[in-house]
Structures are given as structure tokens and as C-alpha cells.
């Protein structure tokens, strides 16, 4: 059954359908901590995606060589090696960005998204599929971090990517760039995304009900719809 999933599907599903933040509820710590600005969010997402892609690829290649009992430890060592690479490269090439992200680059090691994809996907699928899956999930993270960082940056400092876009008359909401703003913004986004999914599911169910069960009376449709 797994084999029938098309490669495109494998890639696209990570962006929304099983979005790591909104649907799997994984990796909240970096999501909340670094999204003071859209730029930080993007940098963090790219770093995470890099680690995610390469660790998925390697784990998927060696998946048949790893004994089952020590697989988690092996995954963590593989992930930690790639995180060290990212950390050192960022320190050398983008010292300022690295400073503003603080300990959260090293903390990618314990980002549950990466271990989650390794355990749930890369350890069971071939390298090509694992690569596409990691890329899709990485884009999903990128989407969430950019949106969250963008909202917080616009409302908290009137700017996005360093360009002022809101008029002087708008008093910046300081709360948005403080920790409290991160929690509240992500909570609201998550709530809206859930409400949207619920609504879509309900509409689909009602449609199916009408399509496959020929209505005997108007009352029956109403009851079916409400149930």
C-alpha cells in the first residue's frame, strides 16, 4: 500500500497535510523561540531542513544495517553530526545570525520533528522517498516559521525583513516580540488551522452523505448532517 503513494504526494504532504507544527504538533520549542523576526524564522527553518534532509537520507541508506535496539542512539548521533556542521558553518559565515539564534541551532538535535521523521518514515522507506518526505516537511516548517515570524515582526516592530511597512501612527505591540506573544500567536494560528480542518471535514462528510444515501425525506438529511 505504501508503494502506491506517488512521489509527488510524498513531497507535498509535508507542507500542509501532515505539517510538522500544525498537524503533528512537533518541534514547538524552536518555532516559538526564534520567530522574533521573519528572517530569523527563515534561517532557523533552513538550518532545520538541511539537518532533516541529510539525516533522513543517511538513516534511510543505513536503515538495514542498524540493529533495532540501538536505532534511536544511532539516529541521534547521525543528527548530532549534521547539527554540528550547521552550527560551525553558521558561526563562521553568519556570526550575527548565529548569535541571535543563540543555543537554538545546537538544540536542533532534540527537535522532535527530525527524530520523528527518522523513526516514522526514513527507517522504513528508500532514500529517494525519504529525501522527498524530508524536503516536504522542511518546507512545512519554513511556511510556519515565516508566517509566525512575519506576523510577530510586523505587529511588534512595524517592519518586515527590515523594511518599515506600517505607518508611524501604529503603536508597535511590544508583547508580540516578547515570549508571551509567541505563545499567543502560535495558539491562535493553530486554533484557526484546526477550525478550518474541522469545517472542511464536516462539509466533505455532508457531501458524501448526500451523494451515497438517496434521501427519503428532508428530515433524514437534516439528521444525517447533524450527526
Amino acid at each position, binding site marked *: 500500500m505504501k508503494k502506491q503513494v506517488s512521489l509527488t504526494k510524498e513531497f507535498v504532504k509535508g507542507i500542509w497535510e501532515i505539517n510538522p507544527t500544525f498537524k503533528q504538533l512537533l518541534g514547538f*520549542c524552536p518555532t516559538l523561540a526564534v520567530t522574533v523576526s521573519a528572517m530569523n524564522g527563515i534561517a532557523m527553518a533552513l538550518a532545520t531542513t538541511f539537518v532533516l534532509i541529510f539525516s533522513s537520507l543517511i538513516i534511510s541508506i543505513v536503515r538495514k544495517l542498524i540493529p533495532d535496539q540501538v536505532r534511536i542512539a544511532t539516529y541521534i548521533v547521525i543528527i*548530532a553530526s549534521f547539527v*554540528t556542521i550547521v552550527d560551525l558553518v553558521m558561526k563562521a559565515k553568519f556570526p550575527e545570525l548565529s548569535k541571535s539564534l543563540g*543555543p537554538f541551532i*545546537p538544540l536542533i538535535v532534540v*527537535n522532535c520533528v527530525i527524530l520523528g521523521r527518522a523513526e516514522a518514515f526514513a527507517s522504513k522507506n528508500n532514500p529517494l522517498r525519504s529525501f522527498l518526505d524530508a524536503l516536504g516537511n522542511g518546507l512545512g516548517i519554513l511556511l510556519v516559521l515565516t508566517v509566525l515570524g512575519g506576523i510577530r515582526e510586523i505587529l511588534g516592530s512595524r517592519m518586515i525583513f527590515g523594511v518599515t511597512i506600517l505607518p508611524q501612527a501604529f503603536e508597535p505591540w511590544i508583547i508580540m516580540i516578547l515570549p*508571551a506573544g509567541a*505563545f499567543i500567536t502560535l495558539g491562535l494560528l493553530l*486554533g484557526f488551522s*484546526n477550525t478550518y480542518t474541522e469545517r472542511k471535514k464536516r462539509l466533505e462528510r455532508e457531501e458524501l452523505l448526500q451523494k451515497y444515501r438517496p434521501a427519503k425525506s428532508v428530515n433524514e438529511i437534516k439528521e444525517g448532517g447533524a450527526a
Partner: protein
Amino acid sequence: MNLFIIFISAAVVNNFVLAYFLGICPFVGVSNKTSSAVSMGMATTFVLVVTAIVSYFIYAFILVPFHLEFLQIPSFILVIASLVQFVEMVIKKVSQPLYRALGIYLPLITTNCAILGLALFISMREYNLLESVVFGFGAGVGFTLALSLMAGIREELELADVPKGFQGAPITLIVAGILAMAFMGFAGII
């Protein structure tokens, strides 16, 4: 005095959960019941203190003398993973009731970013041994405090009429935001 400031700072002012966003996963996942929140908090505090000691020794006596600082991420994570495993074995041997009470939470502590975050902070801020221990204990107290406060609120939330899409994680995050705002009030202490 300095030690006292480190403790208060780690426990309330720069609370690991509400100001540094470390350990959000257990914060959202385990804060359903006050009793499990408290056991989780205590187990985490214990691991935090032991990690503080061990990572201090590893950093100061192995990584720095041999100029291996670049290996700190893999070495810390391996130490933490084996430490959690070790703690689990000891507790299982010494006290069966405690082991059963902590249950699944013990192994999960490995992936709690508060632990690795603590080890990284200690090496970054160059704390000495005593400061590291106090910092680890303060962080643990702060984590337990945040977790049990949240659990208390969530028990009340069960009775509230939350919109369907906002039940579970979303409302927890919003409440956490309000808690974080309240904790900002502590900023004046130090």
C-alpha cells in the same frame, strides 16, 4: 548572593519554559493532570541537576583541555541519553513505586530540550561547579512550577466551553502566553 541570583533567575525570571521556550513538548503533552505534572517535574529536576554536574566535568576536564569544544553537541547528547538510561535503571532497582509513578516520562526526558539547553548554557556562560548545580536546580524548580501551574489551569479548562478547533494544544498555548505575561512581572526582582 551570586548563587541566589542565579537560582531566582533560572527559576522564575528567565523561566526555562515561559521565557526560553525550552521543554515545550512535555509542557503541552504532560500537563493534563496535576499529579503527573509534579512527578514529571521532579524527574526532570533530578536529571537536570545530574546533567549540570556531569556536563560541567566533561566540558571543563575533557573538551577544553583537549581543544575538542566543537564536539560538545554530540558528546552532551550522548551523555544525557546514557544518563537518563542509567537513572532509569537505578530507580528501577532502588524504588519500584517511584519507578512505576514516573513510568513513560523517564525515557522521554532525553528529548526534552531543557536538558541539552542547560548543558549548552553552562558551557556558554562558563559557570563553575557550584553555580552549575544551582543553575540546574533552579531550572528544574522553574520547570516544575510552570508545569504544575499549567496542569492546575488545564484541569479547570476541562469545564470551560472552548471552541472546538481551539481545544487541546491551541488553548494550552494561549494560556501559556498569559502565564508568560504574568511571569514577566518577576523581571524586576533581579
